[in-house]
Every structure is written in C-alpha cells, then in structure tokens.
C-alpha cells in the first residue's frame, strides 16, 4: 500500500515534467515548421539549374520507359531492316562469286595471309634442329 502511494506520488511529480516536455516539443516542432531557407537561395538554385545539363542516360531511359512500344520498336528495328534487306536484295551465285573475289582481292587479306604464312614458315624452319 505504501509502495503504491509512493508510486502515485512519483507519477504525480513526473506528470508535470512530462507535460512541460510535451509542450516544449510541440513548441519546437512549430518553430521548426516555420523555418525559412536562406534569403536568395531559391534564386541561386534556379539560376544554377539553368546551367545544369540533364543526365543523357536518364533522359534516354526515360524516353524508352515512357511507352511500352518504344523498347519493342527499338529491338525489332534491326530485325525488320535485316528482313527487308533479305527480301528485297536478290542474291545469286554470280553475286556470291563477285563477293568472294572482292574479299580475296582486298590488300589487307592478301597481306595478312602472306604474313601469317611467312611467320609460320620462319618458326618451322627455326625450330628444326
């Protein structure tokens, strides 16, 4: 019983302290809500934004994500072009021959084959006892 009375007395002592803390916190929150940014900061931010370039990767991603058909179109475009090319450009045996000859005649091809052969020959002859 005595202990109960002691607790009550302590609670009563703490109650005003708790009330004043609540009041103080409320006052502080109201004060913080009234906070004002440094004068001129808004103008500085807007002025700097005018000089700030937009992130091109973010911009491209946004453009792609803005409509579902855009990534689909982007992916299907090379496929469609390849299909069109295959359908519209006739390929004959004569075309194949011309292509092979053209490739064969490329200086780089000739040089690289000759160089590779020479290197192989040199290595083979050098390794022989």
């Amino acid at each position: 019983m005595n202990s109960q009375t002691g607790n009550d007395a302590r609670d009563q002592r703490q109650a005003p302290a708790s009330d004043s803390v609540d009041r103080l916190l409320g006052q502080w929150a109201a004060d913080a809500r009234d906070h004002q940014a440094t004068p001129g900061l808004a103008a500085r931010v807007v002025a700097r934004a005018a000089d700030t370039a937009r992130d091109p990767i973010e911009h491209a991603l946004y453009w792609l994500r803005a409509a579902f058909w855009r990534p689909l179109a982007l992916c299907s475009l090379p496929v469609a072009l390849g299909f069109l090319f295959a359908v519209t450009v006739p390929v004959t045996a004569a075309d194949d021959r011309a292509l092979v000859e053209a490739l064969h005649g490329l200086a780089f091809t000739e040089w690289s084959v000759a160089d590779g052969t020479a290197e192989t020959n040199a290595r083979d002859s050098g390794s022989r006892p």
Partner: protein
Amino acid sequence: MKGQDNQASDDDALMAGVGARDPAAFAELVRRHLDAVHGYLYRLCGSRDDADDLAQDTFLRVWARAETWRPGAVRVTTWLHRIAHNIWVDTRRRARSMPLEDPEGVLDPAPGADAGLREQRALTQVDHALRALPTAQRAAILLAEVRGFSNPDIAAVLGTSVRAVESLLGRARRQLRDLLEET
C-alpha cells in the same frame, strides 16, 4: 486532407512541367518546397551553410532527373525529402563528420534575459537533444513531428520498412524525452 490532395495534384502538375524542362515550373517547385527541404537538412546537419549546399544539390538533382519521377508512386514532397536525405547520407559518408553548430540566430541568453530568449534557449535544448540521437532516429522524428509525414512516407524517405519506422520513432521519442527531462 482535401487540401493535401490538391497540393499533391498541383505538385504532380509541377513535376510534369519540370520533366518537360519548364524553368517556371521548376522555380515554382523550388519556391514551394525549399523551406521544408532546407529546414529538414538544417536540423539534420546543424549548419545553415551545409543545409544551403545540400538543398541546392537536392533541387539540382531533381532538375536533372525529373523524368525518373513517377506520378502516383509517392508524393512529390516525400520524393524530395528522400533525395535530400540520400544526398545528406552520401555527404556524411564522404566527409564522415559534418560540423554540428548551434543554430544561427539563437542567442545564449545572459542572466536576466527576457522570456523570449529563455524560450529560444529551451528550443535550442531540444535541438541539442535531437542531435544526440542516432541519425536514423533524428531523421524519423523530424519527418514525423515537424513535417507531419505518415509512417509509410517516412519509410519511403529512409528506405526502410514501416515496422522499422515505428520502432525508430518509439525509441527516438523515449530517448528525446529522457534527454529533455534530464536537462
């Protein structure tokens, strides 16, 4: 509540303008939210100069990445605070320790000073007590008590769960109360 909804839809329209690179829309967005974002950062880092820099970085990031914002996902104000919070966390990580200054304009009253200064001193004590809290608790209590954010909004800003926010707020309020009762 209706006012909040109107504000949110106005903000949505503003963000659409910012996404379309309209400087007037951006200026209006800054005018509307700079004080709140600056106040949040100021009480997080404790320095007006740092808060200026961080708030500036926040809005420049908004300008540069306005297109990444999705209407309806979160409120604009929540998104802004999230960006501000992330910038503050990044800066802290880089600098490791931001200076904790006394809030400017708050004088330490001389003996016999008037009631206004005593009141100001009491508010400064709350600021000091707040800075004694761990950073996540500090951020949570600022968003809840000052900005009036709901727990899901706070969770969105801090990038954590609603349950974690409830726990953070509970501990923060207890600790803040203990610190203030001690003084």
